């Protein structure tokens, strides 16, 4: 999840500065830059947190972030970002369910 979100960050920064991206300098591109940074931070935090309120909060926040960033990427016509968010979703699923099994 962290790697995919960092990939999304790189792609979005590239799009922001690439005049041929169609979304260079746009507020929407800044938004996904911010959301991918947040998602990377959430992912790193999830790796360290034990079960509890804070972890649950980050799990919910992460999935909302993934959904929102994917939708924004779709509207920005940034297919690479959408694919990376799907990878991120896969990471989120693996993390959540693997941890559940570990704690079962």
């Amino acid at each position: 999840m962290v790697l995919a979100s960092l990939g999304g960050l790189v792609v979005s920064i590239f799009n922001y500065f690439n005049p041929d991206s169609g979304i260079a300098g746009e507020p929407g591109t800044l938004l996904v830059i911010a959301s991918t940074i947040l998602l990377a931070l959430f992912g790193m935090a999830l790796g360290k947190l034990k079960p509890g309120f804070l972890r649950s909060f980050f799990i919910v926040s992460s999935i909302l972030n993934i959904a929102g960033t994917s939708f924004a990427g779709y509207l920005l016509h940034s297919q690479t970002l959408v694919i990376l968010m799907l990878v991120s979703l896969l990471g989120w699923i693996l993390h959540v369910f693997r941890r559940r099994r570990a704690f079962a």
Partner: protein
Amino acid sequence: MVTDVMWTKYLLSALSVVALTATCGELQAQSVEWSTYNGDLAAQKFSPLKQITPQNVGNLAVAWRTHTGDVSSGGPPPAGMHNRPPASGPQADLPPTVWSATPLFVNDTVYLGTPFYRIFALEPDTGKVKWSYDTNAVLEALTQPDLKNRGVAYWQADAPDTSQACQKRIYIGTMDAKLHSVDADTGKPCADFGKGGVVDINQWNVENAKWPLSILQPPTVYKDFLFVGWAGKDWADAVDPPGTVFALDARTGALRWTFHALNPADAAKSGTANVWASMAVDRDRNLLFLPVSSPSPNFFGGNRLDAISLGTSVTALDVDTGKVVWSRQLVHHDIWDLDTNSAPTLIDIQKDGATIPALVQTSKQGFLYVLNRETGEPVYPIEERPFPASTVPGEKAAPTQPYVPLPKAVVGDKWPGVFGLADIVSFGYCSRTAATLRDEGRFTPPSLEGSLVYPGTIGGIEWGGGAVDPSTGTFVVNYSSAVQIYKLIPRADYDKAATAGGLETGGFFPMTGAPYGVQLTTFLNPLGMPCWKPPYGSIAAYDLKTGKQLWDVPFGQVQQYGFYMPESWGSITLGGPVITASGLIFIGASMDSMVRALDLATGKVLWKSLVAAPAVALPAVYEYKGKQYVVFAAGGNSILTPKVSDEIIAFALPN
């Protein structure tokens, strides 16, 4: 290596051009050049080229791109900007640029005008600069809010003497009314034209001369005439320079005749009714067709209640004398600023077994007026229908307006209604506001409480007009569906608010000298979303033989904050289409900065490519050394989006 198959293709292509030319006479584009703003003097925007087809258009690639450097988004002048007078003192910000120039391809060269009023001559296969010419025009927004240019014009002598200069010429106008003439081969000024290659059009600006006559649209060139219209400063005053068109000698710049749109009595109390868009010429009939704009003040006509018959009209003049041959008014007593805004497209229509010499005049009001171009009489009936009266003291709206049942107007008689999504996210702002406005459908007059106007001054159809395939009579036009609010404000209230400093933003315009100022806004919610239902822009095709609409599809995409809205919403469009003989439509025009190729038969998008800014001009289509090119000036227009550029980009099939 040229194979037999290729030779066969060349032969068939050449034969088809010859056949089309024979069928359509002088109206048909004669070559693979793009020698005027509209491709040819008939404003058909049609190319006989067939190399790029619906089957291979998906392979189109960038052949070359060039940046002129002449672009401003409203900030300080670019570093190292070429020498020119400072704009209102040193280091002043430049106005933003609006670049609607159709490139020309003629004399084996691509010619361009820029919004800094420079001419560029480019190699047609590489985009490399052959030469450039700088008018050194003052870069100030003297009449328009932006620095604007719609391109250049080309003339050549009937029998060019290659030993002499200026046998072929390029012309460019400036916002401060200077018309420049330079040698098309070298870019050197033609000394015999006016004074040192420059004619000051403002020398003929002798009545109500409140501002210079801005030459933003290139002249229309026919025989040895330059037909010069001009743009002005709308909505500021009640009385303005009266509309004129000047016919100049192409060699010397001497004035041959002047067309006056207003009689002296009307000129004393009104103004404009000028020709700011391109014109068309019927070579066979020696007629010049003018799209005449609305008179001033634009939103109140109480001071000009007498009929101004040439205002908001299409008018035919004798080329040699400038005398009016016929004129048809499209809006009576125009109080909506529904300027006739593009050259009519000339086309011979096969109808009921007869060939009718016709023209199609598109309009902001969304009607397609199909007229006999010899007489001005309708080919399809035009009805005088009653429309609402004005409730504004001193105003008297025309009791009837010309109404075109066929071809079907591109926009309806009623506005599309409140868009639920825009209403919900603004907590009912759209529906609440609509309930307070006067709304009686098409031609609802401006009012003191505010009127919903649909279509408004944005259109409908803008200056790109339509294109036609002369072999089939298929006419294509892009259009916008935009709702505007016109609110008149009594003079005392307006002046009081202006003194208090509250009218710098918000769409206020003084119409000084009239008893009312005006607030003109587009009907948006506080988040900037249109309050009316999409689509906001579309493209449609008509069969001119029957007047029937063939197809009508949303066109382009709205882009806000970088986010692309659904394709079914379409986009407001500025700029027009061109058609090729292979059955393709090429068009920019949308706010998403895409240029597209569409299937003429269905309107389906077959190819698209991102360019640096919206391409709000017509593209040019030409062939050079056996290769077909499609060239767009991607300049942008602040009406669509703040994104501007100086990019000229050519597409072609890979080798």
